[in-house]
């Protein structure tokens, strides 16, 4: 059940005969304006705070308590800044590019399963949809870099395009290995395949050794897809000034910055959903927990379960986002040839090997997981 259907089911509060598209737009507004953009903004603040902690500084602490409104102030500042473009810039593409990046990063949130009932669009091809929209980002970076008529930008954008395009392959193969194991492409069904049912069905990262390895392939590839350190070659501020967004200022730059973090959060959410079990916890099945609370004769259990599911899901995603921030202050940047070697000579063969391994595992063990096999053997013994 998608969020729009959930909203249309709240018939106590809503006048009758409202057409369905109102609900689907409302769902999009809730997820994008209510979740993705604020979280993207707050993440820029958190990243600065985390960076400050790693370097034993204080970090932003002026705007609001603990500086938590810093992102809001930054947003207003960017909104009111003069927005210049170079004289020879290709204005149409120059304006289009930040929009493409933002549309790709934010639109992909439609297929992120926050809980069993809170998903923007419960598509049968959820994974496909996410991959398709995420690859819009590379297009936006390349177009923005090319149209701004600047050598730094051009080099950064070319690097960015080559990098994102290359790392899309291991990313896709890592996702494919999950599809092999789960037999599903809908995000909700993939997450539901990881529920704790007592029989030992568990998160796909622990399904078999090949998926365990492919999780790390996915993580590295996703880092490169988001242009995060150690793969921040398109920006590479010590070599290319600011890379692909050198000539972007004001709100156009703000959109790039927002899209970058939206992208990180999106990939972290996908990792949490398909490898780390989404809203499922080990040893408990949240759907079986009934507190029995009720309000005005209606059971509150579904609502409470949904809240818990969202919290668990976001908890997992935020752990991954923290690791991404942590890596930024740990690893040095790769060189271009190292970047390409890592992708084509290591990640792609490893991911292919794991894909074949995962399919053979599913074939030989009839889709059972490692834990199921072990518990089956212990039961037999």
């Amino acid at each position: 059940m998608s969020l729009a259907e959930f909203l249309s089911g709240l018939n106590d509060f809503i006048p009758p005969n409202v057409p369905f598209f109102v609900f689907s737009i409302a769902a999009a507004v809730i997820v994008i304006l209510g979740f993705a953009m604020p979280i993207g903004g707050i993440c820029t603040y958190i990243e600065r705070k985390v960076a400050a902690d790693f370097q034993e500084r204080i970090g932003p602490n002026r705007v609001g308590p603990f500086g938590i409104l810093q992102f809001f102030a930054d947003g207003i500042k960017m909104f009111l800044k003069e927005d210049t473009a170079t004289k020879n810039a290709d204005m149409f593409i120059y304006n289009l590019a930040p929009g493409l990046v933002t549309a790709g990063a934010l639109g992909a949130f439609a297929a992120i399963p926050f809980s069993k009932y809170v998903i923007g669009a419960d598509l049968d091809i959820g994974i496909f949809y996410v991959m398709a929209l995420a690859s819009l980002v590379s297009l936006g970076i390349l177009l923005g870099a090319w149209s701004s008529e600047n050598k730094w930008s051009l080099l950064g954008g070319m690097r960015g395009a080559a990098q994102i395009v290359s790392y899309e392959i291991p990313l896709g193969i890592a996702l494919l290995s999950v599809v092999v194991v789960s037999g599903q492409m809908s995000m909700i069904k993939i997450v539901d395949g990881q529920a704790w049912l007592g029989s030992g069905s568990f998160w796909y990262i622990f399904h078999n050794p090949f998926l365990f390895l492919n999780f790390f392939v996915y993580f590295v590839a996703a880092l490169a897809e988001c242009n995060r350190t150690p793969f921040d070659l398109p920006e590479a501020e010590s070599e290319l000034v600011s890379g692909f967004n050198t000539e972007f200022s004001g709100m156009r730059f703000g959109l790039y910055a927002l899209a970058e973090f939206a992208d990180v959060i999106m990939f972290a959410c996908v990792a949490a959903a398909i490898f780390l079990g989404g809203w499922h916890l080990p040893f408990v099945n949240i759907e079986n927990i009934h507190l029995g609370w009720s309000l005005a004769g209606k059971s509150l259990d579904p609502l409470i379960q949904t809240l818990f599911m969202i919290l668990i899901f976001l908890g997992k995603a935020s752990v991954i986002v923290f690791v991404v921030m942590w890596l930024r202050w740990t690893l040095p940047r790769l060189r271009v040839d190292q970047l390409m070697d890592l992708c084509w000579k290591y990640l792609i063969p490893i991911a292919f090997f794991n894909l074949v391994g995962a399919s053979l595992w599913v074939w030989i063990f009839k889709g059972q997981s490692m834990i199921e096999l072990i518990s089956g053997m212990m039961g037999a013994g």
Partner: protein
Amino acid sequence: MLQEFANALSFIVLAAVLPVGILFVSKFLRPSYPYSGKLATYECGEDPVGSAFVMFNNRFYLVAIVFLVFDVEVALLFPIMRLFREAAINGGALPIFLLAFGFLFVLLVGLIYEWKKGDIDWVRDAIERKQALREDAAFKHRFENVKDS
């Protein structure tokens, strides 16, 4: 299911309209005092030299071509492998396995060919230079041997 696609469409439309709306609104609020210095291409404070469309490594083009094949292949494998689990449990997985991995095998052979040819080494010049140095050293070694004898 169509309803779900409508939901996804509303997400895409909102995500596309949002940046346009933001840029449009901020147009009325932000100042605009352009002059030629401000509009010049940024080249670390110097006057820009020549066109920005400089020549760059054509290796990027090769990467794009290799990527194209692999991406089409990954996109094709998704619907095939979606059926694999059911087939593995109920029998009949062999044709799917052969279809998917036969296809994949051909691609991998292609990758190995590219690899051996050095097309996925980013700095091919460096490899050639290394080889030239090696030949140089061999030549020098022979030359010195000749001189000694």
